[in-house]
């Protein structure tokens, strides 16, 4: 009798535990499937492909070649140029993003709300406009005279994308990214207690001193976050460069790491694409990406973000 009851209780407990599991499982299934298929599997696939000789010819039957792609990569005579381009692209665009973002946040906080808001909204436009349309506008503005506005204003007729590719790339990317910092810094400035500004004013601080000694120290975390986040996304982004200059003009003039990886693996201009080689370059980015995003979690306090669930009844 007692034995039977105990068995029945155990069976019910097992059933409840199982029921407790299949509900969350059902809810998580579609997301888990999609994320595994197009996030986790690609990470592994990138690493795997980077150790094979896969190309257009060997697509169906790639051979394992160990570290050969990576050795070729290091020996590539253009590696220095690509690394230099990447450093240039990331640092200049980042400086523009953070600098202009901060400037816009300060300016729009300084003026009344009804003047500040439209300006902030305007700077969202480059970010929400389809990238191809955005690049089309850049192409139109930088044409030769008499059509191009830049040529007309400067008074020198040039195709400015070919004449000054780096300036155009940094400005075009920078204007898309500046709103990120702008919005982040604006809300940080708003959350500064007004007392601090009164105190600074009473102490006779100049505008510059107020910015330097009151605002900037309080903006330390948003500044760090924007810098960290944008460094990683700039390192891997190449969409606007692809559309603006396609890595040219001429030989690798504006080709950055991520664009080179993309072209090696997926662009068909030279016939036989070097898929494995491109994967090796992408693998470097993937490893950097994983390491840096895990570091973010440590830096920006993951524990605080993960509270216990509200209802523990299943």
């Amino acid at each position: 009798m007692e034995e039977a009851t105990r068995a029945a209780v155990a069976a019910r407990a097992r059933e409840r535990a199982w029921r407790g599991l299949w509900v969350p499982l059902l809810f998580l299934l579609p997301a888990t499937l999609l994320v595994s298929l197009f996030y986790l599997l690609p990470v592994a696939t990138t690493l795997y492909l980077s150790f094979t000789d896969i190309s257009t010819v060997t697509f169906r039957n790639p051979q394992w070649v160990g570290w050969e792609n990576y050795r070729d990569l290091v020996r590539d005579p253009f590696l220095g140029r690509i690394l230099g381009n990447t450093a240039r692209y990331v640092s200049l665009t980042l400086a523009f993003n953070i600098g202009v973002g901060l400037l816009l946040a300060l300016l729009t906080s300084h003026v009344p709300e009804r003047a500040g808001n439209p300006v902030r909204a305007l700077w969202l436009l480059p970010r929400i406009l389809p990238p191809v349309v955005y690049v089309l506008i850049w192409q139109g503005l930088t044409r030769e005279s008499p059509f191009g506005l830049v040529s007309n204003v400067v008074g020198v007729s040039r195709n400015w994308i070919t004449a000054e590719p780096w300036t155009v790339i940094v400005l075009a990317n920078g204007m898309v990214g500046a709103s990120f910092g702008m919005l982040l810094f604006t809300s940080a400035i708003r959350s500064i207690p007004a007392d601090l500004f009164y105190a600074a004013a009473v102490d006779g601080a100049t505008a510059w001193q107020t910015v330097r000694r009151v605002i900037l120290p309080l903006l330390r975390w948003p500044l760090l976050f924007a810098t960290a986040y944008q460094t990683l996304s700039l390192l891997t982004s190449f969409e606007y460069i692809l559309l603006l200059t396609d890595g040219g003009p001429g030989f690798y003039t504006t080709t950055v790491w991520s664009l080179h990886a993309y072209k090696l693996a997926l662009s068909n201009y030279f016939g036989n694409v070097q898929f494995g080689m491109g994967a090796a370059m992408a693998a470097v980015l993937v490893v950097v990406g994983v390491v840096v995003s895990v570091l973010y979690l440590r830096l920006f306090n993951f524990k605080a973000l993960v509270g216990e669930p509200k209802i523990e009844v299943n």
Partner: protein
Amino acid sequence: MPLLPVRWRWLVASGFLLCAPIVAGMAWLVLTALFDRVHGLVPAGPLAPENWAFVGSPSVGGRPPAVVALLNSVLFSFAVAAVEIVVASMAAYAISRLHFPGRSLYLAVVLVLHAFPAVSLLIAIFYILRVLGLFDTLVGVILVKTALELPLGIWLMKGFFDFLSWEMEMAALVDGMSRWGVFWKVALPMVRPGLLALGTFALLSAWGEFILPFTLIVSSRSWTLATYLQSFLTEAFTDFGMVAAVGLFYALPVLVLFGLGQRYLLNLYGGGVKG
């Protein structure tokens, strides 16, 4: 709060000149689409309705009809938004409300992926789609785009569910409704603002998406407006009047949304929900 004394007004005003390129760019797009020739920002020719002939034309230079690209874009954007909203809400609900082993790890992975730059996976995604037989199909691109947007969606919706008081759900559960029923009939209707926010993000992001259809779609009958417009940009002699018209046509929904919902967009992007 004002930082500068009034006599520095001119400095503030000149600071706002930073906005000039954006205004000039938008003006250029509209003027070039409407007039025959535009020098800088000054129309030098008559109005040119022929710029818009592509809308009804069966084919411009061997391209598919613009209507096909438009329909593909609409289908792509709405499919991505719909799937993302449902899938992300389900996962977010489980993370916010249910107890299961590995919950904290699951959330950690979602967060890491949110910060992780997904473009670097493109080469592998190309390979995987080829193996799955989904290469060169709209379905394939929709799935990829949805998956890449999921970490943001899950994270966003989790915030909304966390914020919700659970008395209503509790009452429904006690009354014998299933979890599944509670999710659809009680919880989801209460996070409507979240669904709207996520829907807006997803639509804007998918509507503008270029690199995925450009890489994963070959056949021109599956082109979206992004690849359709891009095919004009690489021509040796571009008819800027017509291309600007295509660009304006493509950007119009975004511009309308911008015109109607500036405040909303500012709150959305400024709310710290989007990286």
